[in-house]
């Protein structure tokens, strides 16, 4: 399997801390077929377990909880191949809990 070392940038924040959001760069091994979701899970699992992403994933285009802003565009992370230099942010207009974990408001 051909692997490649890539870097991705993730916007991190904790709104209750009073600190400004800041980008953090992570280096991971990627391979052809790796999704942005898997890349983020790899960061959490192998590089920095303090990174917060949505805790649930269906991995198959059902839940849309993996919606993030990648290079400025809203995408489903489970279907988007990861690329070197990608910038990943929470979707706009959502309340951020921490990092990429946001409040999902189901109207009720």
């Amino acid at each position, binding site marked *: 399997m051909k692997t490649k070392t890539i870097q991705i940038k993730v916007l991190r924040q904790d709104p209750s801390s009073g600190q400004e959001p800041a980008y953090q760069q992570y280096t991971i091994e990627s*391979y052809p077929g790796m999704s942005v979701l*898997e890349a983020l899970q790899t960061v959490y*699992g192998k590089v920095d*377990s*303090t990174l*917060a992403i949505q805790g649930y994933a269906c991995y198959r285009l059902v839940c849309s909880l993996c919606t993030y802003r990648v290079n400025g565009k809203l995408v489903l992370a489970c279907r988007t191949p990861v690329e070197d230099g990608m910038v990943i942010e929470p979707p706009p207009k959502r309340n951020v809990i921490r990092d990429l974990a946001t409040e999902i408001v*189901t109207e009720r």
Partner: protein
Amino acid sequence: MKAPTEILSCDVLVIGGGGAGCRAAIEAARCGNSVILVNKFPIGRSGTTITAMITYTGTMGQLGICPDDGPDVLFWDVVRGGHRLGNQDLIEVFCRGARDTVLELDSWGMKWDRVDGKFTATRLPGQTYPRGNHRDAITGMMMQRVLCEQVRKHENIRVIDNLMVTKILEDAGRAAGAVALDIASGRFLTFHAGSVVLATGGAGRLYKVTSMPEDARGDGFALAYRAGATMMDMEFQQFYPTCVVFPTSVRGVMVPGAIVYPQGARLINSLGEPFMHKYDPIRKEMATRDMMSRGMALEIAAGRGGTHGGVFIDCSKVPDLVAKHPKSFGLFKSIGMESFDRIEVAPGAHFSIGGIQINPFCESNVPGLYACGEVATGMHGANRCGGNALAETQVFGRIAGEQAAAFARYNAKTDFCEEDVDKEIARVRSFLTGESKETPKELICELQELMYKNAGLIRSEESLLNTLNQLVDLKARASDVKAGGGEKYNLAWIDAIDLQNMIQIAELICVSALQRKESRGAHFRLDYSEPDDTFLKHFCITLDKQDGRTITSTPVIRTREEVES
């Protein structure tokens, strides 16, 4: 320091907001009770129900295209499909209730697929008639949507998302509430409830390859077991034969074998040879899920698998894959899979058959504690037939809600011991402070590898004892695991808590699987490869006072004389 905790009071507490939990909450609310429905992640966007694509065992008789079908035909299908191990009192309830739940969901706006006013239905292996109702290819998602709408309509249901129950509180052996962690804030909530319904779904994520979503970690099994509930048939874990193993970003996504084989797809080993004829000479690739999975696992174990532990499915001859299957082949294409001629697939954990023992009132043996949906067990026996799980959530969700409501009404609330709350919060918080060499996620992956390799599809006394041994070591390491990252939405903290539960469930599976010295349905033992009817009984495990396990066996409940087989 005493952690801050808020106490919320209700008649019925429903834990888990998938198909079963929503239905239970609706029924309890209809009975006039105050209900709190909690879910670990955002409700309607998590759990397993939303991932179910097609079939819902429903129409029987005049409503559909097979007027000869009815509850009695379905009864024997479920009995035989479960290799005669299903409890027939539950099967009776299921068969009589399934059809009405289709109509009920319809009245709530489900809009089932129909032709000329009649329900259309798919026929699945093991079902005598076509009775798998559907709604496009998003049956589960639509079901969850209409259920959430109904939940919203009841003012006496309060829904709380991102709330993870970590303990069921008891008073003198009766369920009295629960302790839960608010994942977003890291704060604890305590529930004081008249009765508790567990609807937390299955535990496929105990295995490295699984078609189940990330939250199918089996919390409810561990919660119930620690509260004194009897766990039954834990050795039975259904696998779906063709789940992708590589690329790992789509690991577990199902390739719909039964649809693509008739269109020219082939299942081959690493030498390029078809192999299913060796394991099921007549049905070959169209064999039932348990036989397909067993054949694939044996082929892989014989060393004729690929580098990622699977065999291959060649779909190059099948037309229009991407357009017809956007959520499998479409997804594969979008992450960069260029051709579909060699997709590596292996059996993935798909449905937890075993679980909390219930009677037809959805009562566990702990007074005030009810269970429904995949976390409960009894009707499927040794193997679940396709389509029955979704209908099960509705048939038994309703009963659980109604019975839990009655229990709360007729029994005065008892008080749990505050010390138990403090102890639980201290236990959960202990993972937050300090440092550990290994992360919770690493240990979860290790557990998943271990269970998949040794206690999954192919088992033997040796592999099971070996797994139990390794679990002792893993448990010791897991108890020391730490989750830096603070209190707010700390995934490592959730993983640390889940890990303890997962190891406990893994032990129950192995212990139960050791007892069953035969092969039946989803349970296959290399050292006892044939069915043996002296094992037509259930194994039950309870936690005794000394923290030890008590294993007993109990007969299969039969309500009808078996006619011709």
